[in-house]
């Protein structure tokens, strides 16, 4: 079913399945029924409605109280900003200013610490829900979404991968990430499945065996971790992987356990997934119901997703216009559509450097070769003054590095050869998911 608002979703679930568990959570495996969930959200919403603030920032810890606070705030139509609770103080301060947060919710100590560092708020109730991009190629931007776009995204995903009310969806992903919010939370609620709220990083090894989910949304690293730790419960039958590719080995391991693995492709800007693999090759993803994907001449993936598209980057008109033109999002990702119209991802446009002679260097591939010959993963390739430079954290002397990469250089045209080595003492700056922040190098 397609819902237009959180209120409509709460009403439907509470009326149709009032005593059915909406959530299970905590080490006591507490349960909250659809009726109780609605009541708690409504009660909290009434309180928030009367309180004197206009923009609520939530430091998401994935708890039931956090979920209720999110839903309650959305019902008031006051602007909501979702923060990662482990964000460093100085960045949190910067983002609070940027997004006009005048009330903070979450870890009490932190909220108290920031009490006098809040912004002045805004003047209207706009129903905005702000998520931050992860920022591998540039600084994080706040993406303006709303309940309608998020629910439309959950609906599109559910059309490809439906759950039932007998399913248990375990959420181990952060709710401040749109993939976690839509595929770890809304996917379950909109299908009347029970959502098991993961108990946080400290319980990552135990949560599958503890909550016995039938479905799980995961990033590749989490999926690999669970497999390695043999932490998968036998009831698990469906895993939706997003936010990156994972190795054939991890895919096969899931398959061998009788688990169906699906990949999802999407962005914060499209309120999560716009293409999902349903059967066959998990890397061949069918375009979601209400979305349209075309491929530009240079291979860039272009998305039209009228119901799920962001309204823009918060207070960044120019940046919005650079990527969103006539309702089409220029994703910066590279891919192709196969003969069945299924989408395959091949890389990031910004990870491709075009040299002055017009030749293209696809960085992930190039860096993988260098990592192999140098037996060092702490490196990347950057373009400086129209030549390629290897940035590496290593104690090895430069001559030795040059000797080792000679074979790679010899196989490439001169314009694509590494002509300088830049050694670093410190590790490369990375995002939380481990991707190199190229813009910081």
């Amino acid at each position, binding site marked *: 079913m397609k819902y237009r608002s959180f209120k409509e979703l709460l009403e439907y679930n509470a009326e149709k399945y009032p005593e059915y568990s909406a959530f299970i959570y905590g080490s006591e495996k507490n349960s909250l029924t659809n009726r109780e969930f609605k009541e708690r959200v409504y009660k909290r919403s009434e309180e928030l409605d009367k309180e004197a603030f206009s923009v609520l920032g939530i430091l998401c810890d994935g708890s039931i109280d956090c979920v209720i606070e999110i839903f309650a705030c959305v019902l008031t139509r006051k602007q909501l900003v979702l923060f990662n*609770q*482990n964000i*460093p103080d100085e960045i949190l301060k910067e983002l609070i200013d940027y997004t006009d947060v005048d009330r903070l919710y979450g870890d009490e100590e*932190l909220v108290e610490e920031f009490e006098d560092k809040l912004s002045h708020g805004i003047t209207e109730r706009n129903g905005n829900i702000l998520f931050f991009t992860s920022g591998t190629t540039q600084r994080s931007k706040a993406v303006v979404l709303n309940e309608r776009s998020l629910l439309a995204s959950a609906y599109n995903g559910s059309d490809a991968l439906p759950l039932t009310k007998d399913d248990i969806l375990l959420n181990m992903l952060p709710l401040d990430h749109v993939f976690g919010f839509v595929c770890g939370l809304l996917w379950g609620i909109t299908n009347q499945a029970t959502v098991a709220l993961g108990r*946080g*990083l*400290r319980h*990552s*090894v135990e949560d599958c065996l503890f909550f016995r989910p039938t479905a799980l949304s995961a990033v590749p*690293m*989490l999926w*690999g*971790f669970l497999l390695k*730790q043999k932490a998968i419960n036998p009831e698990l039958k469906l895993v939706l992987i997003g936010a990156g590719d994972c190795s054939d080995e991890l895919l096969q391991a899931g398959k061998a356990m009788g688990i169906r693995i699906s990949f999802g492709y999407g962005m914060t800007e499209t309120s999560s997934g716009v293409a999902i693999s349903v059967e066959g090759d998990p890397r061949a993803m069918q375009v979601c119901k209400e979305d349209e994907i075309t491929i530009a001449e240079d291979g860039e993936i272009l998305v039209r997703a009228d119901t799920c598209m962001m309204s823009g980057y918060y207070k960044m008109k120019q940046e919005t216009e650079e990527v969103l033109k006539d309702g089409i999002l220029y994703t910066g990702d590279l891919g192709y559509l196969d003969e069945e119209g299924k989408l395959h991802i091949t890389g990031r446009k910004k990870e491709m450097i075009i040299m002055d002679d017009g030749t293209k260097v696809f960085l992930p591939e190039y860096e993988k070769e260098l990592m192999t010959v140098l037996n060092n*993963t*702490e490196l990347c390739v950057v373009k400086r003054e129209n030549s390629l430079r290897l940035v590496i*954290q290593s104690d090895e002397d430069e001559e030795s590095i040059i000797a080792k990469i000679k074979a790679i250089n010899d196989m490439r045209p001169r314009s694509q050869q590494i002509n300088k080595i830049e050694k670093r003492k410190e*590790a490369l700056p*990375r995002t*939380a*998911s*481990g991707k190199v922040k190229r813009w910081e190098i």
Partner: protein
Amino acid sequence: MSREEVLNKVIEVVYECAPELEGTPLYENTVINTDTGIDSMGFTLIICRLEATFDVRIPSRQWNKLNTLGAVVDAIYKRLPKDK
């Protein structure tokens, strides 16, 4: 418990959690993500095991700052009860 004893125990736990490191020497100044190849989930596992081993709790907001084994040792050592 002395700081050195904490370090030895930390190294023992790292080897338990990441058996693929067997044969790789670990020192106080070993940088966790680059010298050992342990990813953030692996690091989480190690921290959880260490918290259980030493009966301490390191706030998750501080985990990102624990770059070396020495920093992990310091975080644990300062939280140990004085009589332990």
